[in-house]
């Protein structure tokens, strides 16, 4: 079976490395971009089955900016996105007690860092299935 291509956009190499190992092991092909600019370029030059997107990058919530750009692109916005973030606590400031999921894109899910391998693979799988379902409905 052909490997599903996954892109990780995250500026912290330690997280990237840990997540990549887990995905590689589960037979995903993983590419990495360490900043939003490279990430968007990669998304445009290659077809990815899934994007793992960090929120707090660079000078602030640059991941949100990436999500907005993806959302504006009719082709890119079809890609399912798994948001991986350590900022739930700060967002909980605004919504006390609630696990916050901002729903930035049509097909997305949110996981808090550090990402547990079992949960990561489960979510990735669920997102891919959800996206495939939407595609076949649309066709």
């Amino acid at each position: 079976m052909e490997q599903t291509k996954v892109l990780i956009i995250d500026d912290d190499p330690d997280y990237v490395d840990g997540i990549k190992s887990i995905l590689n092991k589960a037979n995903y092909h993983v590419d990495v971009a360490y900043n939003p600019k490279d990430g968007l370029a990669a998304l445009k030059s290659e077809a990815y089955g899934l994007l793992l997107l960090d929120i707090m990058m660079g000078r602030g919530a640059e991941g949100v900016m990436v999500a907005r750009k993806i959302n504006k692109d009719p082709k890119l916005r079809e890609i399912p996105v798994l948001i991986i973030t350590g900022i739930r606590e700060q967002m909980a400031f605004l919504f006390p007690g609630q696990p916050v999921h901002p729903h930035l894109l049509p097909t997305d899910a949110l996981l808090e860092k550090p990402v547990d391998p079992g949960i990561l693979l489960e979510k990735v799988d669920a997102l891919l299935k959800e996206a495939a379902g939407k595609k076949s409905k649309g066709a």
Partner: protein
Amino acid sequence: MKSTPKILIIDDEEIVLDSCTHILKSSGYQIITAHDGMTGVETMKQENPDLIFVDLKMPGISGLEVLEKIQEYDATIVPIVITGFATVSSAVEAMKKGAYDFLPKPFTPDEMRLITRRAIDKRKLVLETIMLRKEKEMLREQFAAIVSHELKSPLGAVQQSLFGLVSDLEETLSEAQKNKIQRLQSRISDMIKLVNTWLRAISVDISTIRENFGPTSVAETIAKAVESCQPHAIRKDISIKTSLKQPLATVNGNEVTLVEALVNIIGNAVKYTQMGGQVAILAKAEGNNVLIEVKDNGVGISAEDLPHIFDDFYVGKTKPENERRSGVGLAITKRIIEAHDGSITVDSELGKGSSFVIQLPIPK
């Protein structure tokens, strides 16, 4: 406070205004005057003085009324009343209404300067206190942000690397080696949880809780809280009995935080009760309140710990076996309940058990 303190004098007698202005001007204050109470209040709103001298006996609105208006407008302004000898008793009345001091007529220039100097010092202290309080609040928020980033993210990165490592080496590692990594992971996971709890304690901001208030069912809140504590209770063979006296009103609140508050209390009851013990939850409407009581027959709280259990990071002497404590659960709970205009009280005896009672107002 600006470098030149601003003083407003309100008196209907021209001669008093003149002499006061004269006395104080030479001491380097900026003086504004008003001939009656109403004008005085208007002037106060435009000029925002540091100090206000106000005559008690004036035509139009009285000095006492002016005092009330000052309090309403800005309680940090320091008011001093000017009064005739015959009206010392009304001066006392004025002090009760918030006047900082009184100046009996006739007074010498020195008396007036002395009182003014003291009042200015008082004003400085009040403003400083407010500033310090604001600073403290800011530090708390900054601390939360720093803890979040500087502690959480490296811990998370270590954990993520360990996840990756286990994944890479799954076939290579011996059981003993896997076990070691697992222990590493469990310790790190505990640390991350601790940081999260601390963050939670710092970030429970009453004003933000209140923003998403709505009708909240007490019965449902209790049911959800019990459900979340049940696994722990089952492990310890503790029965949680809930008895609700229907009809239970709906309160105005935020379910998520109320559940959290109850989970803290019920969770504690389970934590501090021996194997096979009992936790009882009773809820009923009483007058304008809903009462929720959580009672256990556990280890109880010692008399010396009792006054402090709602303090941030307070950890009492009675230690549950094999249980972890952060010392913030009850502090958070209290803050949540108070945000709901409710109250929480505790009654406990060492060795006999504890009873927590939460009171929440029923909206009219």
